[in-house]
């Protein structure tokens, strides 16, 4: 079986810091893979490299047998991979609906000429796309918050909105950076249920997560990253049961 997403030999230095060192792994289609590891292990750097925000010093990223090397973030999205950010990066002054609509691909009048010279067509198209965006919001459970500005949403709602925004792009592989961090127990349950639902609908998820309870409940596979290198790979049970990994993870070495 060929891998869905494969990264091979990734290398990235920031000054003297080796953020990624010969990092290689593959993930399978239709599964939820959790990327775990202590702070500074390179988890977010991996996301940045896969999605084109950072150029690796060496190594390759292959998605569905297509090389993603050298692509811009925008081109990576067009290839079917979209990401969220740990610090959300929502458009705070826009409504929840507008945040989702920014993500919709191939919109008419996304340049000035169409907007000015074919205004009626633009308005009609936009009405259609707005329904699409509303459906996406409903899908993550934010239907009744659509017209609220993001700054008025609760943190949990904002987290759900980041997922809605990546869903809007139509991407098949979703890279979620700590979707569950900082959430209350109730919000945690709803986001875990959402991730499961997305998997059932055929999405593949690569999730950075710190909360071991979340990892145990949602992950099919776990990748354990340490000092920019893949240290272990397995089921959640295998990873959690490994005392050497727990030692690294919880900083027992000090």
């Amino acid at each position, binding site marked *: 079986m060929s891998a869905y997403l494969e990264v091979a030999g990734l290398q990235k230095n920031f000054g003297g810091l080796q953020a990624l060192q010969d990092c290689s792994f593959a993930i399978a289609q239709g599964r939820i893979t959790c990327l775990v590891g202590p702070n500074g292990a390179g988890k977010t750097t991996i996301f940045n490299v896969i*999605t084109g*925000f950072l150029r690796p010093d060496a190594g390759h990223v292959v998605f569905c047998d297509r090389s993603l090397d050298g692509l*811009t*973030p*925008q081109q990576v*999205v*067009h290839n079917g991979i*979209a*990401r969220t*950010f740990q610090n959300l*990066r*929502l*458009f*705070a*002054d*826009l409504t929840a609906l*507008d*945040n989702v*609509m*920014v*993500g919709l*691909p191939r*919109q*008419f*009048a*996304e*340049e*000035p000429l*169409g*907007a*000015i010279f074919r*205004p009626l067509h*633009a*308005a009609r198209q*936009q009405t259609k*796309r707005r329904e699409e965006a509303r459906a996406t919001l409903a899908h993550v459970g934010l239907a009744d918050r659509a017209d609220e500005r993001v700054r008025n949403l609760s943190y949990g709602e904002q987290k759900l909105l980041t997922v809605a*925004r990546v869903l*809007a*792009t139509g991407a098949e592989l979703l890279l979620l950076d700590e979707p569950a961090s900082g959430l209350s127990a109730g919000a945690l349950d709803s986001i875990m249920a959402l991730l499961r639902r997305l998997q059932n609908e055929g999405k593949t998820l690569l999730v950075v997560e710190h909360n071991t309870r979340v990892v145990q409940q949602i992950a099919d596979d776990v990748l354990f990253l340490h000092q920019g290198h893949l240290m272990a790979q397995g089921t959640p049970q295998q990873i959690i049961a490994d005392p050497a990994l727990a030692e690294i993870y919880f900083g027992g070495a000090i």
Partner: protein
Amino acid sequence: MDFWFSYITLAEIYVLLGLSTNLLVGIVGIFSVSQAAVFGVGAYIVAHFLLAAEPMSFLPALGIAAVCCVLLNVLVTLPALRVSGDYFVVTSFGIQLLATAVFTNWTAGTGGANGLPGIPPPDLFNHPLESTGELTLLCTAGAALGCLAFYLIMRAPFGRLLRAIREDESAVAAAGKNVLRAKVSAAALAGAFAGVAGGLYATFLSFIDPSSFDLDASILLLTMVVVGGARTLAGSIIGPFLLLALPQVLTLLDIPTTIAASMRQLLYGLLLILFMMFRPQGLAGEKL
């Protein structure tokens, strides 16, 4: 009556400039302090073609000016497409000073500090618009078209994309959108607005000199946007009408003419500071 027509006409020309500045500074967040330079290039180009030995008619000259200003504005905002915020203000400042230097010293092209007098009135389809009323109509049409374009853009996906870019470029890129192309489009559009405004200005006043297109003029445009209200159509209209009325109000006060000009600058500066402190969203806008 003529006084009112002149005031309205001038304010309408500045509405186009307000739209240009608002689009760039308010909506996309490219903090340009050189919009008056682009305005000036539009004015000089139209003046040049109308004053030529074989004068061109107004609309083609205006078209050429608009195209040149589109290219120019894309060029001068190019640094902002790559570097962010603070650095660009300095670059933009330099561009404005450079433009003023060219306007003042390139005597053969711009008449230097003496300016270009005797610019003929605009003509539409071989009919020269000589009365103030006709000129007002022309500028009203120009400003109305500008406002319509601005309105249509802001309600289209393009407008939403620009607002999103101002808030977070990385997030826009992560949503699969081409940030660079959107910024270039916005700069082009702002250039077209400024170029058309320049052409209308030159033919309306029939005389232009560098003082209309210097740093003070750029700052006046920013003040209009701040006072009127950033990021809204209403703000781009209210600002020019209000700030151009100010000098007229000042003439009612008993101030010697020698200090009236500096008094005006002082008031503009004061308004800018007070609005930034107490009402950053302007009269009819959103927070800058």
